[in-house]
């Protein structure tokens, strides 16, 4: 097809190269083309955050980004953060502090939280609440999500201080 575009991107540390219609949405690229199903489709209008990924250091809702816009970029999904036997501090915190129920929002939530803690390594509870307001959870009432993020933040801070 002549209207396809040559796309190159790095996803979770692996180079990916393929032809795609420029208007293909990044979430479909990830889920259907690359079989990366951690990011979920919740609302398809950027409101719920279930599809959140990190692109070149920024949190992005992948349901409203064209694959063409991600061309040449570094994309990190929940799968790039840590696997079941190699949990990231945030992943452990969400597990231990019950920061999830149905789990559908969880990958996007943790991916967003990982950026939040880079933007603000030592946030207050209020900063966490506002920093996470673009990711919706319908189950938990957010209490344990906020707790998980604060716990991960202090663990990361402690590790940083120990290293210094």
């Amino acid at each position, binding site marked *: 097809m002549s209207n396809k575009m040559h796309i190159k991107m790095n996803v979770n540390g692996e180079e990916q190269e393929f032809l795609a219609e420029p208007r293909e949405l990044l979430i479909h690229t990830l889920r259907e083309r690359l079989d990366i199903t951690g990011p979920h489709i919740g609302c398809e209008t950027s409101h719920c955050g279930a599809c959140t990924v990190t692109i070149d250091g920024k949190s992005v809702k992948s349901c409203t980004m064209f694959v063409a816009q991600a061309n040449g970029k570094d994309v990190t999904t929940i799968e790039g953060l840590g696997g079941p036997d190699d949990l990231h501090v945030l992943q452990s915190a969400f597990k231990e502090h019950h920061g999830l129920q149905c789990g559908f929002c969880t990958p996007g939530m943790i991916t967003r939280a990982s950026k939040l803690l880079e933007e603000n390594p030592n946030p207050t509870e209020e900063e966490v609440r506002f920093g996470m307001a673009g990711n919706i959870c*319908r189950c938990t009432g957010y209490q344990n999500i906020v707790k998980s993020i604060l716990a991960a933040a202090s663990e990361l801070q402690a590790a940083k201080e120990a290293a210094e």
Partner: protein
Amino acid sequence: MSVAKPLPHDAARLHVTGQARYVDDIPTAAGALHLAFGCSKVAHGTLQSLDLAAVRAAPGVVDVLTAADLPFANDVSPSAHDEPLLATDSVHYVGQPLFCVIATSHLAARRAAGLGTAKIEPLPPIFDVETALAQNSRFEDGPRIYERGQANTALETAPIRLSGQMEIGGQEHFYLESQAALAVPGEDGDVLVHSSTQHPTEIQHKVAEALGVPMHAVRVETRRMGGGFGGKESQGNALAVACAIAAMRTGRPCKMRYDRDDDMVITGKRHDFRITYDVGFDATGVITALDVRHDTRCGWAQDLSLPVADRAMLHADNAYFIPNMRVESHRLKTNMQSATAFRGFGGPQGMLGMERIVDHVAGHLGLDPMAVRERNFYATGAAAPPQSTHYGQEVDDFILPGLIAQLKDSADYDARRAQVDAWNAEHDVLKKGIALTPVKFGISFTLTHLNQAGALVHVYQDGSIHLNHGGTEMGQGLFQKVAQVAADRFGVPMAAVKITATDTAKVPNTSATAASSGSDLNGMAVRIACDKIRNRMAAHLAELHQCNVAQIRFEDGYVITPAQSYTFAEAANLTYVGRVGLSATGFYKTPDIRWDRIKGEGRPFFYFAYGAAISEVVIDTLTGENRILRTDILHDAGASLNPALDKGQVEGGFVQGAGWLTMEELVWDDAGRLRTHAPSTYKIPAASDAPDIFNVALWDGENRADTIYKSKAVGEPPFMLGMSAFFALSHAVSACGPDYPDLQAPATPEEVLASIARAKGV
């Protein structure tokens, strides 16, 4: 012991790494097809023709189904056979599926679905309560009426009498995972359906009817849902049936997931209610008579509206003994989405109506509503015999006075109420409010035969355990709680127990995971199955060792006889070698319940679950904006099977309930189109909307009824704790003027502004 431990959700490790699979994540064979519905744009009319030429010609389209293509039953109703999968000769709401596109991708199917045109001769639609009543458009012949005493006579003799009305809005479920199904054709006409459903057996039943095959030809599997909240009790039927028909027709796997907009436009929501009341009371606030009327818009099809409206009637007393009480309920048929189950199932609307009446009585008398609440509570304690509800069930487990005393103390309610009043006296623009509301929620399906459950447990010769039961996992932690029961029965670590997907081929004839009953029913069924196997193992070992069965203990991964200790694996292997069966089913039915829904008499509930919440809010009287400043909750989960998961239900339930009553607003236009069909226009709570201070504790006490480990159901009851935010808003508004604010739900900023004007009498 595994029971009562705050263990994480069973799939937490998979969820946090994105490895947990939902229906849309299941890998499908190459050639899988995708479905989308083409829907009516007209609210009511006669379907004259469909022009689908452009749909068929669209890229990627493999086939298009209309009602005429359906080989057998064209019905996806859970109750009254009044819900065609695809419209036949008439259409009843904007969003009703008319045809189904089968295409090579999800997007191709959706794009093509938009190309169809329907010729519909419009008929006058019915949207509002008045029109529905005038045209007698209703389900059932007339209203249901439950009455105890002589409400109307007692009203006439009551010292003070008040009347009023409250509108209560509906609510979109907004499960994060939209409805989804995947059907895989098998040999000889069999089909396997993966469905995001709370009710696999009903999916199996409806698919079998649609394919004209016995239920044994259909297997339904549900590993998990990305949220359910009642919205997946019946609303998944259409997708599963469409996928199964398409799969049989094409011979290829067929998948359907609703786009969020489609989901909100097509599927049913919480019932909205109008509550009209006439209440009699004395100068101290003791209510002697109440006549309350419920008008609920059920939408176009019956679905679960009758039991929903019944449950609203059964909770019209909330926690109060009202000697003369009459409840009249009208279930209206309207040209809108068919309202369906949603956490609380009518209970919240009935209960909110009663709390509104209490709030109004207190407002009239100038009392703290808490004083009125306390004066009307059901009797409790040794000195007072239990009182009965208006439907004749004795309230013999009423723990609210003690629970509320503890909550008031821990949250410093009395002092804070005085502080709020003092603060309001000094502030003109911002006003604060505080309220304590109780919850008494009946546990059991009111359709008595649904109170049954089955389980299937295998112990393998290596000592590992396969656990299966009829309950479904939607995030509530049911699978983990039930696995904790199984591990406890065998005295093994949790890792020995494999939790498996709900599967109609393993446990048949299951009830929906609904009515908060998942752990109560399935926990018991699993306990019974485990105990059968444990008893067989013990009997075999007792015979080998010539000891008494009672001397054999299952503890800490060991099976201990007086002579010798075996690992559980060794004991399992010995039992296997001894040619003793290591697989068992368990079956449980709730005892002591009976209910006549026509008379409104009986004991529909095995027990009640209780809770109470105190919320403090602030409003901006210039804009109507509001925030919850602090919430304190004490909730009764009995002897909790897993306090961490149960607390999670309480926190999530509260926020969802507060969202329903403060910000979630459904708006239909004059043509019957839902204008709030996406999260851009329908606001559900975000992390920044939850209370600034949020203290949640579980009541320390076991269930008096004989439930699994004396625990209590916890799925729905906490939802109604959200009422405290609503009545705190009412308190804040009442600080703006002398009149009763007459706050309607949801208390959006617009509604708060309007009620401020009412309080000021302008």
